[in-house]
């Protein structure tokens, strides 16, 4: 078809569908009425897809990355203090600097600071459950927070979400946009969680932070490493809308 996108001619690499969750995943009930039934239409990358807001979103305050104190109450959040750090890379291993990393999570008791969360677990007045960080020249980010609790949800009888931290990243282009979750190693709830189960088991390790004794700080906080890999640029340079062609 004339004008039809041709995946081979540049832009960013395609999503790795073998490791991506499907839109339709009956074990996770909310997908039932929300998954498109028509096939996605392939879209070749143009200037609209290889640009994105990422580069313009790189301003945050250093204190935004400390979820134990960013409630601003003067008291610390309750719970098991942890450091979560890692590198944002692309598929070629190239560090992605100046990338906004946004995180949100429930508190140590398993409750979100959200009016929709009716789980009768205590709220912590010293914990707002959100943070932001921008990756440095090495692509690294770092958060100080508390370990989130597990919490029940109503997907199926006796359903509990494993402890997790939500991550949002933009990367350099619209098509590198990613929202994901970091889980914790050794959690028995992994096996029972349909959201983790939406991804083939051999890929679960990409979503599980690694306990790292080198990050752990004596008498202070346990350390976890969570590296994130965004889609990388295709080997073929993007020609039609590249900066040179448009300058």
């Amino acid at each position, binding site marked *: 078809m004339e004008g039809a996108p041709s995946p081979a001619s540049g832009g960013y690499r395609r999503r790795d569908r073998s490791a991506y969750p499907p*839109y339709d995943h009956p074990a996770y009930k909310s997908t039932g009425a*929300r998954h498109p039934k028509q096939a996605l239409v*392939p879209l070749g990358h143009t*200037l609209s897809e290889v640009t994105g807001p990422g580069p313009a979103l790189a301003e945050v305050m250093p204190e935004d990355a400390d979820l134990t104190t960013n409630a601003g109450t003067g008291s610390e959040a309750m719970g098991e203090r942890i450091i979560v750090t890692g590198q944002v890379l*692309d598929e070629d291993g190239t560090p992605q600097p100046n990338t906004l990393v*946004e995180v949100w999570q429930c508190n140590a008791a398993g409750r979100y600071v959200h009016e929709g969360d009716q789980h009768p677990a205590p709220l912590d007045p010293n914990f707002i459950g959100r943070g932001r960080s921008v990756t440095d020249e090495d692509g690294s980010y770092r958060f100080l927070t508390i370990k989130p609790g597990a919490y029940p949800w109503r997907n199926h009888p006796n359903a509990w979400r494993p402890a997790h931290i939500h991550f949002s990243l933009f990367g350099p282009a*619209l098509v590198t946009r990613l929202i994901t979750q970091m889980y914790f190693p050794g959690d028995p709830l992994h096996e029972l969680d349909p*959201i983790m189960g939406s991804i083939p088991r051999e890929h679960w390790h990409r979503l599980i932070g690694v306990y790292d004794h080198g990050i752990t700080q004596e008498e202070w906080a346990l350390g976890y490493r969570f590296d994130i890999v965004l889609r990388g640029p295709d080997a073929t340079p993007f020609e039609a809308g590249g900066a040179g*062609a448009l300058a």
Partner: protein
Amino acid sequence: MPALRPQTPSQTVGPFFHYALTEEPVDRLDPDGQAGEPIVVLGTIRDGVGDLVADAMVEVWQADGGGRYRHPADGRAADVPSAFIGFGRVATSRDTGEFRITTVMPGTVPGRDGSVQAPHLNLQLFARGLLDHLHTRIYFDGVAANENDPVLASVPAERRHTLIAHRDGDEDGLPRYRFDVVLQGEDETVFFDA
């Protein structure tokens, strides 16, 4: 060639993102009024049983009135008015299910192989129940360039109407366009594998 590192898989944004991602909605894209003709874009999101999705997040990314993206890959980015990032992020209302942004009508954007893309907003949709976000485009009814838009042309003719926003009145003295998203079923919105 060295093996590629595997991409980190997507997971759902869940129902409780509001306080972190949309507590301060980015819903006025052109605060200085320099980037083009102002318009309001609003819409709803419906699921396969016709219910409004009132816990969704919508992100838009767009060019300015001159068709330029504020990004280093666009060689014309230096001409984009400084306050216009081109990015918006809002949640659907828990009361009405609507999302709403005040922005500008984008210009035409260069496409592949010398083609010209009609004015459009790029829209990404996140919600509980979406394990991966959805990607679509908002075009505008009555724009002549739609006839030659290569992306619209790549969509089956009977589904193209799902990508067109319609003028449905004025709001705050600005032309208002409605773009209702249907996640599943009859008149299901076209979503792209971008």
